[in-house]
């Protein structure tokens, strides 16, 4: 099976497919213990523990969002201050121009807007979306990952032949299926 199309990207590795999330987690554990890295899991829903096993923690998104919220709040307030105090001051019975309680709702709403937009955009950036084509889509059986199967992508390691090792670690049997993907 060759997975070279249009874009010239190529992949080398194996795709192990499981019917059951627990079997997939077991296999993932074994692979990690044997020292495989750069593994990736594709699943029809978010499986707990996968992140721990892969040793990945999402740090960026919450920080970006907090920063965006703070910026949105400060910017939103300054916008109103600029408009009501500096740009277009209206003296109505000597009331203070910087009427911050009246600015609070818009400040909140604009902070929310900043969070929504920054959250969505940074989500796209961190997921590298939109990315309509990826060579992984060409691996046989990949479409099952969005339906009912749990896949582990095991990239080929430079200068090593893991065939034998993988056959031992992931015995081909119930609900396990390995596709070799050379490119």
């Amino acid at each position, binding site marked *: 099976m060759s997975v070279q199309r249009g874009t010239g990207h190529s992949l080398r590795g194996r795709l192990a497919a499981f019917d059951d999330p627990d079997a997939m987690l077991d296999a993932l554990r074994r692979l990690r213990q044997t020292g495989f890295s750069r593994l990736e899991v594709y*699943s029809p829903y978010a499986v707990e523990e996968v992140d721990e096993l892969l040793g990945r923690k999402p740090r960026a998104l919450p920080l970006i969002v907090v920063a965006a919220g703070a910026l949105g709040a400060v910017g939103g307030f300054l916008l109103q201050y600029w408009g009501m105090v500096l740009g277009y001051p209206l003296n109505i019975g000597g009331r203070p121009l910087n009427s911050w309680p009246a600015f609070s709702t818009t400040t909140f709403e604009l902070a929310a807007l900043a969070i929504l937009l920054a959250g969505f955009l940074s989500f796209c950036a961190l997921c590298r979306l939109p990315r309509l084509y990826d060579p*992984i889509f060409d691996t046989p059986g990949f479409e099952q990952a969005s339906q009912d199967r749990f896949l582990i992508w095991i990239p080929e390691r430079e200068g090593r032949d893991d065939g034998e090792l993988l056959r031992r670690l992931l015995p081909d049997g119930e609900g396990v299926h390995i596709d070799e993907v050379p490119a």
Partner: protein
Amino acid sequence: MGASRETGQDQTRVVEPGVTALSVTVHVSDLVLERRTPLWWWVGFGLSLGLLGLFVASLGWLFIRGVGIWGIDWPVAWGFAIGNYVWWVGMASGGTLISALFFLTRSEWRSATSRLAETMTVFCVACAGIMPVIHLGRWWYFYWLFPYPNTMALWPQFRSPLHWDFVAILVYVAGSVLFWYVGLLPDLATLRDRARRRWQRVLYGLLALGWQGSSRHWRQFKILYGLFAALMAPLVCSIHSIVGLDFAGGLTPGWHETQFPPYFVFGAALSGFAVVLMLVIPLRRALDLTGVITLRHVDVLARLMLTTSLLLSYCYLMEVFMPFYRGEEHEITVVMSELGGTYAPWYWAKIILNGVVPQLLWFRPLRLNRPLLFLIALCVVVGMWIERYVIVVGGLHRNHSESSWFVFVPTVWDWATLAGSVGLFLTGFFLALRFIPMVSMFELRELLNKKTTGGGQ
């Protein structure tokens, strides 16, 4: 999924037995990808298009002739348009509450109904957003509400609740659409992967943005979705509070009430749950979803409707009590005119439809009687429109200066705009029914998997 004919009257199960993760995925995506468009869809869509035509016609006439085609005049300058706005945006809350609030409480029953409810929200918000724009006499200047540098050196009045409302709608529209779309991404990818026809692959391929379901994607997705839920829950409360402040911020008798913000949140929630029920009851049959949208869902929604109806009834009581407690003469006049004046039939209709009729839901057999429940929900939806009508017109028509008292009589264009906006909603919703998976497939996969591996109820 058809396997589950109504299994008795069990209302404890979130999912009927025999439904599996794969069967949900296959069934829900086939509804979009494979099933021949049923006759009821064509009939419903045709009628909706007719109403949408009416909306376009009434807006066209409005744009030609101006707001004089409506029954409004001083001092009742806010007529149907603002009532419709509050009504639509209130119904929109149903989707946000179900998908955001009950996501935060980790309620299992939410998963199967969230997509339907959120889709409803998106189109309700669209109808709501149009109303305040068209009620501006010179609607083509609506962009003056944006704070942008302009040669007139003008700024919007940031201190006005009306401007808070403008900002709140804007953010709520953006939030509802983003929340809905992000929640759709994994399901759009499923459709892309299951599609057999080329146009479907292209359409869903584009919409899914290249979602892979990798651990990297899910990791970010979980955070973003949780975050959006945590943000949308306060946002939905804020928008209805601000809508309440639109009224409370004015000195108009009957509007100048400190209880208005929560009053409007309760009313919004009541109409939101009612409209979700009105969609869920027929659609679970029509789309053959009785296996995943069970009697438990129907029961929960009915209870929520009862709860919010009680909360709202308390506000109705306070609304009458407070003017007497304060002893302000003019406010008492206004209350008395509501109870027995020109608009008294509307007032009592609102009390009966929103406060009395939902009391039937105390009784379990009535909650499980779907046709009756549908009717109760319909009563509430109509009642909530009447409530907004009474609030908007009731206060204005008896304002402080007796010389300007005025009775608002809606014209045919008022009614046409209202009916037409229903057409806009239904057209959008019918299209969504045809092209978007109406149940969140990935959430149900997770839920069903937890159940089969003994994750408990």
